[in-house]
């Protein structure tokens, strides 16, 4: 048995065992969950080297699991994030109930994701896609009663996505006769051009729902914010990447050569752009930290989709680099918000304030997170953004560059609001009891921060696996060194020098400021501020958080009116009304039913020739 079989077996079996063990010995359950995730990680790393393939027949289709460079990329992401989230969950969920249910579903989701990434044929892809959907549904509605309608909305959208996948799979089966990925790709060409486009669009909608492209994103903000924090980190970090994994496959493996396909790509790119822009604008005016991060996560996915849809080698590299990075920094941010929730019990940005001195490490994690999201040089976000912009400019998407840049500049607003309202600002008496989160929750956060730093200094390390994956995707090559990035016009940026310069200047300036008059520099509390002579009482609240960006809101108010959510709820409601007319069909008294039978009989007799034709 090679490592892929081990991974899937251990994860799914582990899920079952944790559920059973939960009912018997409670502490053992956490240990088992962690070991299962750790062994998953171990086998994924082990599987990187070997090129394995498992084939076994099930109901006259043969199921093939194997790893390709492209899937290894995503598998490592899932393994690492899965392991870290479970490590984080141990303490976060310590005193919550129904933990067996929680861990089982978490491991099911991780197993489902492994399955998707390793499946080489459409049946197992769809099989694991559905497993991932319903187990994540059960996790979304884990917390409380309000989660029920949100969970239902999530399930309906992912069902729509999954069933459009199924229609595409069925069409492929009808056209090519079999479902193994390898020979589908060979004779994908001889499917008629129209069908190719239809299949591609269906697959894109299917995968698009999961990666929350604009028109299909409605479920994302609520589901991300209502599900428990450890799972949200995985949900937005890894689960949304499955959609991206699919889109990547469709855009490059199933790519039909017909002219129309380029139109599909352009529309997708522009959809990604609009997603990024509108999601960022919505994120700015949120008051709940998790809702804000949810919208920001949709925005970042918009960037990845743009990268894939533009299609030049550099933009694919940017997209895949962002995939890995987004997984890391989104998990970091959700975990640090979870840490705040763990200590203060709320993620409402208007009430929590001034935790920097009480939770320094969570502050550092969030600081690294927002620096990466904003794409400012020292950390990894910059390399991804740099590649994305270069590729967009070189591939003549001028106005898309402007939209993307406006979105990423507007991102500074909500990022600053997030870290300012939670950690900086007034240190209130109300939160004086808060202390740092336990060690086991800190380790994942710090590991991810370290990774983001390394990805910033040596992007090459992350770009190596990406270039292998791109080789597999469609032998796209792009020029890069361990810490120097090139664009098509030959310009380059040397991350090494950038970091050295920034580091050196920062160090010199830092030393100068600290040691200049060290003896006479003193720390004062946030109550000792210039309030024109007045002396604020101890519990007087001087925090400025409510309506933080009111002027900006007044400037762009018209843009915020359009909301797709209203349209969907409207559709949902009048569908409900439409089903009401059926009450008139099933009236409930025998006579009408008898009348139906007679009516049906007469109808058949009258139109017999028409219905059954003569040649019986």
């Amino acid at each position: 048995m090679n490592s892929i079989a081990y991974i899937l077996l251990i994860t799914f079996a582990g899920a079952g065992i944790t559920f059973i063990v939960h009912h018997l010995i409670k502490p053992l359950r956490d240990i088992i969950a962690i070991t299962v995730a750790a062994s998953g990680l171990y086998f994924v790393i082990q599987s990187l080297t070997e090129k394995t393939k498992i084939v076994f027949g099930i109901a006259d289709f043969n199921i093939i699991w194997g790893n390709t460079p492209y899937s290894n990329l995503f598998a490592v992401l899932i393994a690492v994030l899965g392991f870290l989230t479970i490590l984080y969950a141990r303490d976060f969920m310590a005193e919550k109930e129904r933990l067996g249910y929680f861990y089982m579903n978490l491991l099911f989701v991780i197993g489902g994701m492994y399955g998707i990434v390793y499946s080489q044929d459409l049946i197992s892809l769809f099989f694991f896609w559905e497993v991932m959907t319903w187990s994540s549904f059960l996790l979304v509605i884990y917390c409380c009663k309000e989660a029920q309608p949100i969970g239902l909305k999530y399930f309906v959208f992912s069902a729509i996505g999954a069933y459009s996948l199924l229609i595409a799979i069925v069409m492929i089966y009808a056209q090519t006769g079999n479902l193994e990925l390898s020979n589908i790709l060979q004779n994908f060409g001889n499917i008629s051009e129209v069908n190719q486009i239809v299949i591609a669009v269906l697959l894109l909608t299917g995968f698009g729902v999961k990666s929350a492209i604009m028109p299909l994103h409605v479920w994302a903000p609520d589901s991300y914010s209502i599900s428990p924090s450890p799972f949200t980190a995985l949900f937005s970090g890894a689960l949304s990447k499955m959609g991206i994994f699919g889109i990547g496959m469709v855009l490059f493996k199933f790519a039909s050569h017909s002219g129309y396909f380029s139109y599909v790509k352009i529309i997708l790119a522009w959809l990604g752009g609009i997603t990024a822009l509108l999601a960022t604008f919505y994120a700015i005016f949120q008051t709940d930290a998790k809702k804000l991060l949810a919208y920001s996560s949709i925005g970042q996915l918009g960037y990845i989709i743009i990268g894939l849809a533009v299609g030049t080698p550099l933009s694919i590299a940017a997209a895949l680099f962002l995939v890995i990075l987004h997984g890391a920094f989104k998990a970091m941010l959700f975990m640090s918000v979870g840490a705040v929730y763990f200590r203060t019990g709320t993620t409402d940005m208007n009430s929590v304030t001034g935790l920097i001195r009480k939770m320094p490490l969570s502050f550092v994690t969030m600081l690294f997170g927002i620096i990466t999201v904003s794409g400012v040089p020292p950390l990894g976000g910059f390399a991804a953004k740099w590649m994305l912009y270069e590729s967009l400019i070189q591939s003549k998407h001028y106005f898309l560059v402007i939209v993307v840049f406006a979105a990423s500049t507007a991102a500074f607003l909500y990022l600053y609001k997030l870290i300012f309202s939670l950690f900086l600002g007034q240190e209130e008496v109300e939160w004086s009891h808060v202390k740092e989160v336990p060690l086991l929750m800190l380790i994942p956060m710090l590991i991810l921060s370290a990774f983001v730093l390394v990805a910033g200094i040596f992007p090459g390390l992350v770009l190596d696996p990406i270039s292998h994956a791109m080789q597999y995707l469609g032998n796209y090559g792009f020029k890069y060194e361990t810490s120097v990035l090139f664009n098509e016009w030959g310009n380059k940026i040397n991350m090494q020098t950038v970091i050295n310069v920034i580091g050196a200047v920062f160090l010199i300036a830092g030393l100068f400021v600290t040691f200049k008059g060290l003896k006479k520099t003193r720390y004062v509390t946030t109550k000792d501020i210039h309030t024109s002579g007045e002396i604020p009482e101890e519990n007087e609240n001087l925090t400025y958080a409510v309506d933080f960006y009111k002027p900006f809101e007044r400037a762009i108010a018209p843009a915020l009116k359009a909301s797709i959510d209203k349209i969907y709820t409207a559709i949902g409601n009048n569908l409900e009304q439409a089903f009401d007319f059926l009450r008139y069909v099933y009236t409930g008294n025998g006579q009408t039913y008898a009348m139906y039978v007679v009516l049906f009989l007469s109808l058949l007799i009258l139109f017999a020739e028409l219905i059954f034709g003569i040649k019986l």
Partner: protein
Amino acid sequence: MFNDKEASKIVDIIKNFARKHSLWVVAYGTGCGAIELPPTMTSRYDAERFGIRGSATPRQADVLLITGYLSVKTLKRVIRTYEQMQEPKYVIGFGSCTINGGMYWDSYNTIKALDRYLPVDVYINGCMPRPEAVISGFIKLQQLISEGKADGAKRYRENLEWYRENQRKVIKNWRMPEYNW
């Protein structure tokens, strides 16, 4: 080639020269003298020639102007602002009300001699000195600084107890944070 004492002397000269030519005034007018400041700053008398500029917060400022009568209520705020300013700070008392109570010498509400409560470096007399007098006051302050004699802050720090005792005598319910200079 030159020992440590001379070096520190040269550094002091430069420091005093810089402090002399860049006096930032806290935007804080207490009495009727505050109206004298705009003309001194604007085109006719132009105090900016001497490097005198307004600053919004006590953290950034060097000079605290007490322009006119100082009621007990305002004294409490003035003390708080003074303590929030950074170390080489100077106080200039405008007009006779700060010197000996001026025309409010018999009022139940205003303090009669500013230097009992705050270390004053320069007094400018006149029942509201005209801009020329204000500028001459600043020039006097600049001389004191260059001679290193404008050590109001040091005096305040050294005999803080004496100042506190006077201040407590006037301000009934004290409730002020500690002065952690």
